[in-house]
């Protein structure tokens, strides 16, 4: 019996078209626009100005608060201007636009492909390096990684969980990374274990990635205290709380951080980025992005510098199909629909999914028949039908009592609803309103 999380969950069609496509390097574009808010938290502070010459890997915007991250130049060239650019949030935000000239790297970076296993850094040094490299959670949440490595005083980390679940349909970037950079990921995990001072690490991988499990199981023999856990295919297993439940059997209670049950979760992509930052001094300037979709002629996985417009990636995959209805940054369950093809790829973009027109439209909304299927599939044990009604009627105090803030926005409820009701739309509304209410209360 394979492990999985306790309640709810769905199994959407996997559609992993690009699973067997090797990661290729996408050519550097002529111009990149690097948004200054690629992570959760405060936008970074720009430290370059118009006309500055920057090198690849050079710091161009620095952390501006506790929850924030450094941003490095993904290319070398001249800063063209600092302007507003539409980013994945759908709004125009500040971005650094750089005209690319050659590809000259910062001297400190080790650009060789050789594997470097040994390291001799203290926990603090590692965390500092990760912080300087501007590493954020690459699973999509983009939470600055160094903060997760510094557990609060009264808690202690016991286990490091590496998320290689990739439960989103279509996406394969983590899968490819585990296949091609298995050893680097394992070294990265060792570094993270050292930083956290934990003795144990588990890599959770869903059972549909047999080759990745096989590859890592073969490699892991040389590394101590890391085990590979294959998990039953079930969405949303990649959710932090669900993954902890699946691997350790512990439940993180409402509003608490995973550290209270002694677990810290990082993505495999993050582990790889940590390896590069610590062993090669390379800051986070590129990532593996999946470009996929049913109508895409050449779905694939590309190593893309941040700031590259998604247009370039789509062109590399054979151009935008005729019948395109929707372009999604991320997977189909939690990704964000993008409004133009000029949006730059940022730290959180794990994939670009192109949906044909007939799959893009929502279906007609019918009345709720109270079939309770949304309750059945909710992995957090909430009542989506009720939360939607409460949000519609603006009864935000009641929805706070009904634990609306526990919602992880996995979309299982909207997916499963036979009446095609926009459950998650309204639950999100409820969450923003309750959040605003809480902020207003704490101000008083």
């Amino acid at each position, binding site marked *: 019996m394979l492990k999985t999380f306790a309640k709810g969950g769905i199994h959407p069609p996997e559609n992993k078209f690009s699973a067997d496509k090797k990661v290729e390097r996408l050519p550097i574009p002529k111009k990149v626009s690097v948004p200054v808010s690629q992570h959760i938290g405060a936008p970074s502070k720009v430290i370059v100005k118009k006309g500055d010459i920057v090198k690849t890997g050079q710091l161009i915007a620095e952390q501006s608060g506790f929850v924030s991250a450094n941003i490095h130049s993904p290319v070398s060239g001249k800063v063209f201007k600092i302007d*507003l650019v*539409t980013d994945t*949030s*759908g*709004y*125009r935000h500040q971005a650094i636009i750089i005209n690319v000239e050659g590809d000259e790297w910062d001297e400190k970076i080790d650009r060789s492909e050789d594997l470097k296993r040994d390291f001799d850094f203290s926990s603090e040094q590692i965390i500092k390096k990760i912080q300087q490299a501007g590493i954020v959670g690459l699973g999509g949440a983009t939470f600055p990684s160094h903060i997760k490595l510094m557990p609060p005083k009264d808690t202690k980390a016991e286990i490091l969980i590496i998320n290689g679940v990739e439960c989103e349909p279509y996406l394969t970037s983590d899968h490819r990374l585990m296949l091609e950079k298995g050893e680097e990921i394992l070294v990265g995990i060792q570094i993270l274990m050292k930083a956290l001072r934990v003795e144990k690490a588990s890599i959770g991988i869903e059972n549909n990635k047999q080759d990745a499990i096989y590859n890592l199981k073969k490699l892991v023999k040389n590394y101590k205290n890391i085990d590979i856990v294959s998990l039953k295919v079930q969405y949303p297993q990649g959710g932090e709380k669900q993954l902890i439940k699946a691997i350790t059997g512990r439940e993180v209670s409402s509003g608490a951080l995973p550290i209270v049950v002694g677990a810290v979760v990082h993505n495999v992509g993050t582990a790889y980025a940590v390896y590069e930052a610590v062993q090669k001094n390379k800051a986070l300037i590129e990532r593996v992005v999946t470009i996929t979709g049913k109508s895409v002629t050449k779905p694939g996985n590309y190593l893309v510098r941040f700031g590259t417009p998604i247009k370039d990636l789509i062109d590399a995959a054979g151009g935008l199909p005729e019948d395109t209805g929707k372009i999604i940054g991320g997977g189909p369950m939690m990704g*964000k*629909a993008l*409004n*133009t093809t000029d949006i730059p790829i940022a730290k959180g973009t794990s994939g670009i999914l192109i949906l044909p027109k007939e799959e*893009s*439209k*929502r279906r007609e909304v019918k009345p709720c028949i109270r079939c309770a299927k949304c309750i059945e599939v909710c992995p957090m044990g909430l009542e989506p039908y009720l939360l939607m009604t409460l949000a519609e009627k603006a009864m935000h105090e009641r929805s706070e009592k009904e634990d609306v803030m526990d919602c992880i926005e996995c979309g299982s409820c909207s997916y499963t609803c036979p009446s095609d009701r*926009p459950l998650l*739309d*309204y639950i*999100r*509304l409820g969450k*923003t*309103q309750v959040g605003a209410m809480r902020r207003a209360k704490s101000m008083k």
Partner: protein
Amino acid sequence: MNGVVIATIITISSVGIIAAIILYWASQKFKVFEDPRIDEVEDALPSANCGGCGFPGCRPFAEACVKADDFEDLYCPVGGNETMMAVAKVLGKKVSEKAKMVAVMKCNGATQFRKKHTEYDGALNCTIQHNLYGGETACQYGCLGLGECVDACGFDAMYMDPETELPVIIEDMCTACGACVEACPKDIIELRPVGKKSKRIFVSCVSHEKAGPSKKACSVACIGCGLCFKECKYDAIKIENVLAYIDPIKCVLCRKCVVVCPTSAIWEVNFPARKVKPTIEKKTKLTEIKEIDLIKTAKENSKKDNKTE
């Protein structure tokens, strides 16, 4: 048979009497003293329970009125000065008059001025769309057109114009309760003083975008060019963050700024000559005489305004 009827009558009447006694006893025993003036104040209020005063309804507002020493912070926007006078009369207090307000819609991005680039598909709720992205057009500040303000309005003072896809405020019905202002996630609606003879001049745009992208997104956007600022002799216009704002108190309604605005973003309402908002083509040159007249009347108006204040 008779016995049954009599017995029924007796039982039912005695039940009634006993119940009456219990009810009377309970009403005496559990009586809560309430200031009778609260009821009187409540009667004077419009009973709309709209929450425009900042209280949950008319009764809590009445209670607050009775408790309060002065009416500085208490104002019923629906009833206006008359109601507040009536309330003050009940309580024997004095109340200062406040300018009557009306909601104005500060986005003129009708479909013909603002092209749609994307198509929103989802729950028809402005806040939800606002949380998702900037909107169907290239302007991320403008009206989303899903009518959350119309739903919020408790006085039927708003409707959606199907042609422009913008909400329209019916002035005569608007009570300035502020429900729409609160409902709008883009902060487009503003409460402004009604003004002399309901005449108002305001900038119908909230875009902080720079001139280039702003004009690209919407042909009637305020581009922050500053022409109106230069034109205004009364220091009523300020430009902040590439957006002009007309101070309703300082404005003397001279209408000069309306003429100079290159994008027709400044609106004039309820002026005699042109009731309809001038379109870009209709930028007619006003004759000298008329202009002087206008300034004169405007000055007089402002004097009168100052006096009443």
